[in-house]
């Protein structure tokens, strides 16, 4: 367990409402610990995610909103699994 990497060292969650984190540095696939308040959860990053790209923190179903900064940045184009990269291939602007 102790060898698990800490997600906060790789990515930032900008608001408590967000269902994506943004990678600050290249984020390799693998298991990570994630802390939110007193809760400690684990997340398996399913693919390598480049710096400044986004990671799904939970399963997001097709047509559900994607939150960053606490606000909707678009809708899921397809079902997105927790741990996958979120970008133009699976997110569409709702403007």
């Amino acid at each position, binding site marked *: 367990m102790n060898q698990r990497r800490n997600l906060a060292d790789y990515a930032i969650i900008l608001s408590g409402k967000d269902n994506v984190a*943004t990678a600050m540095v290249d984020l390799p696939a693998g298991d990570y610990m994630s802390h939110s308040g007193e809760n400690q959860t684990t997340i398996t990053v399913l693919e390598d995610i480049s710096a400044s790209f986004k990671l799904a923190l939970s399963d997001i179903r097709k047509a559900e909103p994607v939150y*960053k*900064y606490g*606000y909707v*940045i678009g809708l899921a184009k397809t079902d997105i699994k927790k741990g996958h990269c979120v970008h133009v291939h699976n997110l*569409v*602007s709702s*403007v």
Partner: protein
Amino acid sequence: MSTIKLKGYRRSDSLFGIRNNIVVMSSVSCANSIVERIANTDTDIIPITHQHGCTHMGADTEQVLRTLSGTCNNPNVGGVLLVGLGCESVSVNDIASCADGDGKLVKTLLIQEIGEIQKIMDTARDSLHRIKDFVSKQQRSDFDIRHLTVGLECGGSDPFSGITANPAVGLVSDRLVELGARVILSEIPEMIGAEASLESRTPDDTVRRRLLAQIKDYVQLAKNAGGDLRGCNPAPGNIKAGLSSIEEKSLGSIIKGGRSNINEFVEYARRPKCKGLVVMDTPGNDPESVTGMVAGGANLVLFTTGTGTPVGNPVAPVIKISSNTGMYRRMGDFIDINAGEIIKGTRVDAVADKIFEFLLDVCNGRQTAAEVNNCREFAINRIGPSF
């Protein structure tokens, strides 16, 4: 509530300059070379030239006049020599009559009236001598930070702008608002997609309606010009770098305005009445946006950048904040604070503290990179054609 005292030049009970600039300004583009020639005689004098002042219509004439007189009225200006041709639509007298008398000396000169170049230069020298004498007698005195106006700008954003530099500036913005100062958020086209965030913290119905209508107008203006702001934003380069939608890009941009309520919406180059966070209608074009906020009274501008830019302003210090360390290393001469360290683990509030301390130093006289480099962009946002 705690307060902070700064040292500035008193223009009135509620207006203080953090610089005591002497400006030579053309009222019309026909006077630009003469303005440059006058300014070349003395390094203490700041030339302001532009491409406007005549052969434009209604709203443009008003906007050009408002921008020029607003720039003269900026509290950082202690003296102005206005240089006109004599037959233009924005006259030196129109500009001068809008400029404050308090704590500031404004003189005018008309090229057609004086005639010969040597006589013009002699008249300018006499006027500037009197302006310098007036300005040199002014001393810095204590003023409360609540009399400060700070503009916010971002230019050449990258995907880190919205998670390093802009959130750090957002914390500074909130702190200034708490201290009773005024902060101007601008660049309406960069708010498309972020309406929900802006709406939720704009309590006044009229302000909210005007702001949302203006955002919509920009979408339509772009369509009328044959473009689609939603289609080209984020740009291919943005997408390649990880930005997925215009909402994400805009939210990352407006975060530099922090989380305070929006109290007022003002047109381009208009001085706001309310304190706290206000929004000004400016385009995303950096020099035009900064020029509008400074004409609206901004003492200084916090300017975040990802790709790097030298843009400054003739009368207001512009503080450059880089969003990534790579650019900071390449363009360090142009940058005051590097927020890129947040990527390596420095806390956002620690960088915000650094920006705030630097801002206080700049208010008290410390020069910014843009000032050291004499970067003095001046560009008036234009509405219609020339005739």
